[in-house]
């Protein structure tokens, strides 16, 4: 069943049970939940772009301040919550905060759903206690790297997060620990790459994604992601120039922290991290004028 239908059904049930709508459970309090479908633009995950889009305008982030809590949807104070937060709430309400806080680490309590994709035997969604070692997620729950291969790298928090290596497998799945390791837990989307993966190609595809999703509002993101995508294309396809990795790092300097919203900033994090760890692969592409993984490459999720 499509997610929207599922949610609509749940809302109808809640309405029928008197949990939402007029006079909730006889309390005299009115509250309703309206489901609004987005059209898939990545930028509309940015909270102010989401509000602008809800109002019917182009999905573009707004200047902050004012923050949504002061001036949000239709200019009214607005709280913007993730689905993740909303999904956790009923359990905390049902079982109490102590139950929730008893799980996880001192700085990261409770559980989190990790959405694992890529070269593992069992990709899927896994809800784990915060602080669970990454090794457990990939090797126990995910059944290890597919086809008997070994792990090359993984991206712990979604399309923009910095790459991590096998040496980071014992890092715990919580915000602080992953940040300390040099990446971010972000949205909890774990992408796993095996040894046959061309890391340049992964970065190329991710940068192309950001180029495609850039709203075009600000210069660094609009022009920078386009330029970076061009550079990655030529490196991957054997036309790279010796200065290209450094040029990419310099573009990171001119985009990250300079863009209007985090989309542009984040487009530079993965590429810069792979240049840090895998510069030799970039150089191999450039010197050999071809992708060294060609032929053995498998599709990345």
């Amino acid at each position: 069943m499509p997610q929207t239908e599922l949610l609509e059904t749940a809302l109808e049930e809640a309405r029928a049970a008197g949990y939402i709508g007029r006079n909730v459970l006889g309390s005299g309090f009115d509250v309703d939940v309206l489901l609004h479908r987005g059209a898939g633009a990545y930028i509309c995950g940015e909270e102010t772009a989401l509000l602008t889009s809800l109002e019917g305008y182009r999905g573009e982030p707004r200047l902050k301040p004012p923050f949504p809590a002061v001036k949000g949807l239709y200019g009214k104070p607005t709280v913007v919550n993730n689905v993740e937060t909303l999904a956790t709430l009923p359990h905390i309400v049902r079982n109490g905060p102590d139950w929730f806080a008893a799980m996880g680490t001192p700085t990261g309590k409770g559980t989190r759903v990790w959405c694992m994709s890529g070269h593992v035997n069992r990709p899927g969604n896994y809800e784990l206690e915060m602080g669970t070692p990454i090794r457990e997620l990939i090797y126990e729950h995910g059944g290890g790297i597919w086809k008997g291969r070994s792990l090359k790298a993984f991206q712990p928090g979604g399309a923009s997060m910095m790459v991590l290596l096998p040496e980071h497998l014992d890092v715990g799945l919580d915000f602080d620990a992953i940040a300390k390791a040099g990446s971010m837990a972000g949205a909890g989307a774990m992408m796993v790459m095996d040894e046959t993966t061309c890391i340049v190609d992964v970065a190329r595809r991710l940068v192309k994604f950001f180029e495609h999703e850039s709203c075009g509002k600000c210069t660094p993101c609009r022009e920078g992601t386009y330029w970076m995508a061009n550079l990655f294309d030529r490196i991957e396809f054997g036309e790279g120039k010796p200065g290209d990795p450094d040029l990419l790092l310099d573009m990171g300097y001119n985009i990250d922290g300079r863009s209007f919203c985090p989309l542009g900033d984040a487009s530079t994090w993965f590429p810069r991290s792979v240049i840090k760890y895998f510069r030799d692969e970039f150089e191999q592409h450039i010197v050999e004028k071809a992708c060294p993984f060609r032929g053995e490459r498998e599709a990345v999720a």
Partner: protein
Amino acid sequence: MAVVTDQVTLTVDGQSVTVAKGTLILDAAKKLGIEIPIFCSHPKMEPVAVCRMCLVEVEKMPKLQPACAVYVMDGMVVRTRTEQVQRYQNGVLEFLLANHPLDCPICDKGGECPLQDQTYTYGPGASRYDFPKKHFDKAVPLSDKILLDRERCVLCWRCTRFSAEISGERELALIQRGKDTIIGTFNDQPARSEYQGNWTEICPVGALTSRQYRFISRPWDLDRTATICPGCSMGCNVHADARHNRLGRFQARENLAVDDGWLCDFGRYSFPSFQREGIERPRVRRDGRLEEVSYEEAMAAAAQSLRRAGPATAGWASPAATNEELFLFQRLLREVLATPHLDHGRGRGEAATALEPDDAALPIADLERCDHVLLLGGQAVIDAAPVLHLRLFKSERKGVRVHRVDDARAALEAVPAEAQAVGIVSSLGRKPEVDSLQGKLARKVKGSVRRLLVPDGPNGRGATDLGFGPGRGPGYASLDGKAGRARPDWEAAGVRALYLFEASPLHDFQASGEEREWIQRLETVVLQRPRPSPLDDLAHVILPGRAFVEKAGTVTNMEGRVQRIRPAIDAAVVRDDWKILQGVAQALGADWRYRDPDEVFADLSRAVPAYRADRIGERALWSERA
């Protein structure tokens, strides 16, 4: 206890500056003479911080901050020229130029282009972008006035924001997204705005250009003259830019009290009407044919014929003539020819309503300070002075209630009794209605009620102030029973000679067929005009004069502001109109010895003390009239 003030003190590049709360970093720096480069920021529009050119370091803030959108705070420490900022400025300009066509050599904006200037000041010498550039449509006609070059566009949003925030028409919008983003109109329909020329002026690159000015000149080859727009009685301040003694364009010359920095397209693109297409010689009709003669012969011939008609002469002046010309012309008619028949109304059927000083009691800029404004007549009033719309829209955005009404009763009802400051804006033709409405409103509301009437022509106001009409002398002086007749009554009054002074093709005599037949029967028709006129066939003497952009003098706008016009074009041997009027008067025996328009103005001031030479640029002071 700390003293609470509205001022904050910060330092920019080591210099301390105190500014009002709510000031942007950009403006605080400007106060110190520190320039922070910008593209998207515009003083009359809300900050959007999209171009990212103005990023600066602010202590205690980890990221560079957009100076155009961050407000100052007490104790803030701003640095605009650090190594980080300069390296980033190189970077953002490299981004902006990566897909810019760099066709400066054939771009109209080249030489006055912020992108070009800032690239030289803050940018890298060379680009590392070595891919083929993105291509977009070039020279896309947005309308019959404007071309859009989508390759040059840097997506600063100034034009779209003008369309939303300044004119309120929302005709321009962003289309597509990311690297494919473009500017355009809905469904590529032609833009219909009456304010499109402003888009070209606020565009920080050569993306939006005027079709009329296309490839006319490099900006550094233009001779720039500060003058007034001849389009209507708004009196917008313009730069008349000419190349090789030909007009190339009008550009706004911001006067916050009048035009707020904007022009309408009717005025901006009116300049071809004033383009001189050659030098004409005076002509006198002999045996039914017009023969070229010298100015002296022509003026003598005019004088001879006018002397015969004397008090049976009528004089008509265009409401585009200068105050100096109008003053001399009324002296010529009243003092030398002893005729009372003066008028400046266009079209014979026009009711002879005369303005009063109080019709300018509401200054244009004060519209923003009213709480209710009645636009009696709606769009018809705006059509007569289009820039008024921008002021009214601005006022509305500031909270002024603007009522666009067509009848006085609805107008009266629209304004509540507790109104503090009410303005009525209408056209001269509706003066009786406005007067009665103002009376009723004054009784209804607590606060003040003032009116602003839009006269015809760039100097309709001056023509009335200087007594160029049948009912009142200069400065509204009584004529002691010697009032003349208005243009519709001249035939009945036995007028035998006509002296027509057409100062502008936009504000000419406009004779009806019936009126032409009457003129044809007159014994003398003297026609003084800047360019060939439909009345040439009927004239006995033609005295070529100068166009609005070819002469010096003053004109008075709708709110009574006396402003200087200056010659942008050297009309060479074509005689100045005031000299022609003086020449005819001298030929009729008058002892006039004015040497320049300033001397005429000095005399005019004596007759009309509200006009003062030391207050040119200000509104005439009628309250001191007593």
